[in-house]
């Protein structure tokens, strides 16, 4: 599958690279946001689409990294990206390790509920305590300092390419990992965990590793989101966020990396469109989600197949059997 996709990926990459040349500021920022959410969606895809662990609390790791950045950033000067980014990733990874150790022993609906519950715990921790500004959140007045000469993250264009690089690295990394023995084991777990255990795989270990890896990558997205906006608040780890990223996966189609990115693009563009139509855009989004679940079981990635099948049916002659 990967082989036939490679030319398309290159085309998409080139388009994204060239996009800033034609885009005005608003769209530049929009696509930057979409790329950040693509990283977030990819991280959840690893968990849901490839390992079969439906987490409804993934936004927790997104938010924890964001808050780590905001708390670690000095009040006056720009934060050092090469110090704060690893710190934020470590924080997300640690949280994912702690929570993961508790939740990977559960499965099915329990897993869904406990991941949600722990994410809510994180949400309430930041919302109700004064540790990090409570419901008001924290402002970070400047973008992080990239230290590297010539790279100025305060410049939206530079930041765009910085995020693009992150997305490309994450995409490539996941593609490699999923083809490796470890990745194959994850997919085996999704297909039939019992069989994997019977074959001798210590599946708990693999699930925890996937959970931590996914949490860490979500942390990368959270860091970039916080760096971009200069503002963090508890809503970043609210379950609406967890639900939204899950929605991106179903929109794009889980179990494919491209689908995750497509889903992020579709979701954000949909959100922009609905918001422009009405201030009650959540109504439209909710309706859309319900329709998508009922009508698009494979997500957008499955749309070509769905359409082709329809067309194929119509062209079958009665004497073809």
């Amino acid at each position, binding site marked *: 599958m990967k082989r036939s996709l490679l030319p398309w990926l290159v085309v998409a990459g080139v388009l994204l690279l060239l996009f800033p040349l034609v885009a005005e500021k608003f769209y530049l920022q929009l696509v930057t946001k979409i790329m950040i959410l693509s990283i977030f969606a990819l991280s959840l895809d690893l968990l849901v689409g490839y390992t079969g662990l*439906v987490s409804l609390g993934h936004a927790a790791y997104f938010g924890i990294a964001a808050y780590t950045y905001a708390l670690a950033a000095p009040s006056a000067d720009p934060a050092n990206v090469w110090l704060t980014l690893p710190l934020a990733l470590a924080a997300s990874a640690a949280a994912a390790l702690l929570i993961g150790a508790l939740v990977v022993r*559960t499965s099915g609906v329990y897993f869904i509920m406990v991941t949600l519950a722990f994410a809510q715990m994180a949400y309430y921790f930041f919302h*109700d305590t004064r540790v990090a500004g409570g419901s008001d959140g924290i402002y970070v007045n400047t973008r992080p300092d990239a230290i590297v000469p010539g790279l100025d993250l305060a410049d939206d264009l530079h930041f765009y390419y910085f995020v693009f690089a992150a997305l490309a690295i994450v995409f490539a990394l996941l593609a490699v990992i999923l083809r490796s023995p470890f990745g194959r084991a994850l997919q085996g777990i999704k297909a039939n965990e019992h069989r994997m255990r019977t074959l001798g795989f210590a599946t708990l270990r693999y699930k925890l590793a996937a959970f931590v890896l996914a949490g860490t990558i979500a942390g990368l997205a959270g860091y970039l989101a916080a760096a971009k906006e200069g503002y963090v608040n508890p809503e970043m780890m609210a379950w609406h966020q967890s639900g939204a990223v*899950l929605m991106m996966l*179903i929109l794009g189609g889980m179990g494919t990396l491209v689908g995750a990115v497509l889903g992020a693009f579709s979701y954000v563009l949909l959100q922009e469109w609905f918001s422009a139509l009405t201030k*009650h855009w959540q109504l439209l989004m909710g*309706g859309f989600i319900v329709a998508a679940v009922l009508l698009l079981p494979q997500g957008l990635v499955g749309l070509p197949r769905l359409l082709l099948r329809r067309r194929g049916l119509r062209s079958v002659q009665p004497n073809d059997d």
Partner: protein
Amino acid sequence: MEWLIQILNSVQYGLLLFLVASGLTLIFGIMGVINLAHGSFYMIGAYLAFTLSSLTGSLWLALPLGIALSAALGLVLEWALISRLYRRNHLYQVLLTFGLILIFEELRSIIVGDDVHSVAIPAVLAASLPLTETLSYPVYRLFISAVCLALAGLMYVTIQKTRFGMMIRAAASNPEMATSLGLDIRWIHALVFAAGVALAAFAGMIAAPVSSVFPGMGNQVLIVCFVIVVIGGIGSLKGALIAALLIGFADTFGKVLLPEVASIAVYLLMAVVLLFRPLGLFGRA
């Protein structure tokens, strides 16, 4: 004596939570559907209590009207949407019901607005029961506890002792067999779902006078219900009752003794239970 008040509060809160959680765990245990929108029904109940009691002037009139309306809503939802989820995997159930939450929240926002409202306690229950010379306890809260207990008892009797309950249990443990024996599974599912919605909405209605009516109440109660179902075990009403009471105590005493930790006390409790019983106290694999 202050402890007695806190104990009574814990029991009342726990029983109310049980009412909501019972619907959630039943719907999952019997139909295998995880319903994120369950908290929204609680909110809908509370807002129904507000609008209907404003219209009719009395909470007593609002209650039966509200129950009927929410049961009808449950039937319609089940027919239109939930019935399509029975054989699909949990991810789709989660997403579709998540979409429902967004829809309900926005509809509420459009129809009733985003303000916080209060609902008056009916006059006959507005008194307070004196406990000591200085302390007294609101009769209405005792009323809530009594009603929840009565409903819990009714649930137990219905499920364990009636034919309808037997049909429900049959449908839960072996749908194909039940169908081939002539039971109309679709009706059982529809009724169970409607009952779950009505229970949650009813809880919202009777809770409204003490907890007030505000936009985020559905989400708040939903998460707690999830914790209850996880701790108690999916499909177990007994587990839900015990877990709900545990949470009632943990939350109430948490707020009194350690206010900072109070909001996360409930999750810590869940974490501890999970360490030893990944399937909950009374859950079956």
